């Protein structure tokens, strides 16, 4: 990645940096036009001339703050402490905790002076399940075929949209119905949605539970207008740099707009091709309205990144004139392989070779990105492996540590279930067999199975058998020291205290047994890391639940394991998308790359035929474009709207990617895609048409 400050400032950037001459400034322009570089120059000036005041760098997502963090990291400034990099969500969460007594005083909650119980997405889904499962049992949502966790998350998404757009959650069904044009049975589903979200909100108010939507509402309605809070907040920050305002929802713009008059200096930055997070409520039109609060507005147009061929391609895409581009220009911008591989693994092989070639010819590894709408863990693993064999480092998103499939975690949870018969969640034969052979590596799965066959006629295991009860013909086949380990494990589990908290139990199981010599986690750093994250996950899960009546250790442990098995906790709680690995070839989903605020020389686009490049996820219970401040009341969402949205999304993504490419784009496609099927999405068609018509033109000439 190139240094943002390596760009020589032009006149516009100098104006932007001058926070004394231009204290309140709104700048806009396309990606790679030097806006963030200008903001960094401004930050540098603030820090060097006003070291006592504090600057808030506000970003919609932490990844977009990377240039600011990198600047502060590498410059080792004592005044770096005077810069606070935040998202509005993190401000909201912290301010609600800090000013909770003000909310208590308004008697919104049934037990106003008791502490707030903040919900994560996962724990909100847990409580939503308590509300919705009985509704489903009574026949509500009968026509919906979503998995339960997707159903719960869409209901929560509805609540979130009402809060961030700024309308009452009780209006959800009315808004969704008013835009619906399909089968009338869907209208009943929207009534079910309203029933569920109303009941959930009531439950939250009765139990001091704060999901994201309630946090936003309380912040907007109670905290933000309060004079005590305002005095505190004005003292906290004197300067504001708000980057990528277009990726935030309207409530953030409302807050910022009403704050402007109290700031010594403000810089708001709008990326004109943005709004990539619209499905999450980002509202570029609302962000653009912030400009009206500023006397000084600057338009950035200079392109610092894109080479002439890509510039020409961008110009062609954005022009209404149907002027053809010469094949030579297209070929300089977009590279296609001379012979398209038939299968996906061959394509990966060919991409690896191309990357190796580029690096041998002097391209730094970190100047290369491999991008696809979705990236499966096996794809990332396989590509990283191939590149690693060639000595090329890679970076990717931290792999999701799926609780249900991680062998270390699964082993511990299976053993925990065996130690807690009161949970009444006995593991099945296969889980126990696997746990035994992981916990005791010298006990192979076959022999583990033979042991378990003695006691589990109905395919579930409630306890391990005592070694002395095993038939001699079996014990002869297992070394005595391994049998001793099995017995020790059984005795250890049998001695577990049902009232011991699950995190304490796991910690002891790990240290007292599984890391002892001969057991599976001994000298296994990866296992230690995974178990630490499991404990962390449980502790976050239990935090809001612990205040429930009857929430003793046994209840909390049982609920955690049950919630996990129901798929509500699909992955460990991890921070926002985090890119890990030493600097190298970046392998990430397209959206992640676009939200990184960076550019590279070579982009490899995979899965060109996929509709994931432009189609929105199927969401029968909600609608990000109808539940939007820009949506016209009473208008219907039609198939034409859906198609137009797809085209718009594809255009925006392509322009966004091209503007972040300083060299060439490699279009990578195979006859059969990653899923083993032939895909013919709009991106593939666009690329084929582009080349075909240029070829035809050339032949005609």
């Amino acid at each position, binding site marked *: 990645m190139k240094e943002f400050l390596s760009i020589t400032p032009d006149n516009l950037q100098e104006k932007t940096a001058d926070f004394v001459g231009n204290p309140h400034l709104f700048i806009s322009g396309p990606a790679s036009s030097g806006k963030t570089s200008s903001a960094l120059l401004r930050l540098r000036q603030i820090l060097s001339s006003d070291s006592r005041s504090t600057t808030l760098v506000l970003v919609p997502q932490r990844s977009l703050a990377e240039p600011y963090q990198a600047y502060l990291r590498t410059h080792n400034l004592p005044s770096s402490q005077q810069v606070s990099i935040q998202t509005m969500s993190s401000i909201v969460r912290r301010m609600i905790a*800090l000013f909770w*007594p003000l909310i208590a005083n308004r008697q919104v909650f049934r037990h106003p*002076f008791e502490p707030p119980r903040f919900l994560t997405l996962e724990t909100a889904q847990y409580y939503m399940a308590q509300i919705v499962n009985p509704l489903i049992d009574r026949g509500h949502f009968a026509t919906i075929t979503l998995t339960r966790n997707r159903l719960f998350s869409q209901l929560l998404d509805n609540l979130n949209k009402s809060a961030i757009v700024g309308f009452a959650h009780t209006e959800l069904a009315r808004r969704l119905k008013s835009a619906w044009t399909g089968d009338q049975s869907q209208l009943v589903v929207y009534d079910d949605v309203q029933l569920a979200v109303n009941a959930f909100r009531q439950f939250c108010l009765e139990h001091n539970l704060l999901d994201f939507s309630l946090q936003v509402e309380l912040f907007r309605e109670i905290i933000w207008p309060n004079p*005590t809070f305002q005095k505190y907040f004005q003292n906290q920050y004197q300067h504001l740099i708000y980057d990528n305002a277009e990726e935030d929802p309207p409530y953030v713009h409302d807050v910022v707009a009403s704050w402007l008059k109290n700031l010594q200096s403000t810089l708001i930055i709008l990326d004109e091709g943005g709004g990539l997070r619209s499905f999450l409520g980002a509202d570029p039109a609302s962000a653009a309205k912030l400009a009206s609060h500023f006397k000084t507005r600057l338009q950035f147009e200079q392109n610092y990144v894109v080479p002439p061929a890509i510039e020409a391609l961008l110009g062609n895409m954005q022009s209404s004139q149907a002027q053809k581009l010469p094949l030579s220009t297209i070929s300089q911008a977009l590279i296609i392989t001379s012979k398209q591989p038939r299968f996906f693994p061959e394509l990966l092989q060919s991409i690896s070779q191309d990357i190796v070639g580029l690096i041998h010819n002097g391209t730094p590894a970190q100047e290369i990105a491999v991008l696809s709408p979705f990236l499966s863990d096996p794809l990332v693993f396989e590509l990283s492996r191939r590149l690693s064999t060639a000595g090329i480092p890679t970076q990717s998103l931290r792999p999701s540590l799926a609780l249900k499939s991680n062998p270390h975690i699964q082993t511990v949870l299976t053993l925990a279930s065996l130690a807690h018969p009161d949970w009444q969640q006995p593991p099945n034969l296969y889980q126990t067999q696997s746990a035994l052979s992981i916990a005791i590596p010298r006990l192979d799965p076959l022999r583990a199975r033979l042991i378990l066959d003695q006691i589990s006629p109905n395919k579930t295991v409630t306890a391990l058998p005592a070694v002395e009860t095993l038939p001699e013909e079996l014990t002869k086949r297992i070394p005595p020291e391994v049998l001793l380990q099995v017995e020790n494990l059984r005795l250890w589990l049998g001695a577990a205290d049902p009232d011991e908290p699950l995190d304490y139990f*796991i910690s002891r199981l790990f240290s007292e047994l599984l890391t002892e010599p001969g057991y599976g986690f001994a000298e296994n750093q990866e296992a230690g890391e995974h178990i630490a994250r499991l404990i962390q996950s449980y502790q976050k899960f239990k935090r809001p639940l612990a205040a429930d009546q009857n929430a003793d250790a046994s209840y909390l442990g049982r609920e955690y394991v049950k919630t996990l098995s129901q798929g509500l906790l699909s992955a460990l709680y991890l921070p926002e998308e985090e890119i890990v690995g030493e600097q190298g070839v970046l392998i990430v989903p397209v959206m992640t790359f676009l939200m990184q605020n960076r550019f590279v020389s070579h982009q490899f686009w995979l899965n060109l035929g996929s509709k994931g490049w432009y189609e929105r996820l199927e969401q029968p219970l909600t609608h990000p474009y109808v539940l939007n401040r820009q949506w016209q009341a009473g208008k219907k969402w039609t198939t034409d709207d859906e198609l137009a949205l797809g085209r718009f999304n594809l255009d925006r993504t392509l322009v966004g990617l091209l503007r972040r490419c300083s060299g060439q784009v490699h279009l990578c496609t195979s006859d059969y895609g990653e899923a083993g099927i032939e895909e013919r999405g709009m991106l593939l068609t666009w690329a084929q048409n582009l080349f075909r018509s240029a070829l035809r033109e050339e032949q005609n000439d």
Partner: protein
Amino acid sequence: MTDLIPVGFVFHQSNLQAFQNCRFSFLLRYIKKLPWPAPLAARSSSFEQDLLAGSTLHSLIHQYFLGIDPELLVSCAQNFPDARVSGWFDNFLASKYAKITDNQFSEHSLQITLNGSLLLAKFDLLSFDSNTLQICDWKSSQTMPKRQFLQERVQTMVYALVAARSLPQAPRPITMHYWEAGFPDQPIIFEIGDAQLRKYEETITDLITSIRSLRVEQFERTTNLKKCAYCEYQNYCARSGLQGDEGSFHDWFEIGLSELQGKN
């Protein structure tokens, strides 16, 4: 100098104290950032409860200095599930530290550069007038710590040093007040003059220089096994089941509290 410590690394009282206790735990926790299952059972059944109660007391006092009506705060304290918090907060309100004056900064961070390294302190309360610069640190220990113990803490040195260097015009001597909520009439107060500050600067500079000079293999495990009793990496070092002392409990409690309050 080795390049183990990344550019922009911020030293603070918790990581410096951790280094003093055990170089290896500093390496794992602050450089490698290795998550590891902590010996929860070793830390006493009330460890988490104590942390939460301590953190809530800090929040209430912070809210008090932000100007929130004390009656509301008393109601919140009374409704907190751990009854100790209400008693502690009443003790605070009745103490001399509840006096509101100008130039008081609650939960305030300051950072300086010391010999090229960043050194951060986050103060529970920093207040000054023309005669005094006062640093207050609220504690919720179950037993009253010894004066000598606090005097030798990295925290005392770092706080005084950062306050003095950040506010060079501030009056001397600086006073550092450790106020124990359970023992409200027995604050432990240190007066720190220029000579003492110079010594602190030398000690902390040496400590940081020493950390920066070490190669990976020189981050050795402590030989004082009492320090391992509550350490999250005790199992990593195959040092499980050791008996600790009050000092090591205090260290881990302070680290836990800092994390809960988002100070580190």
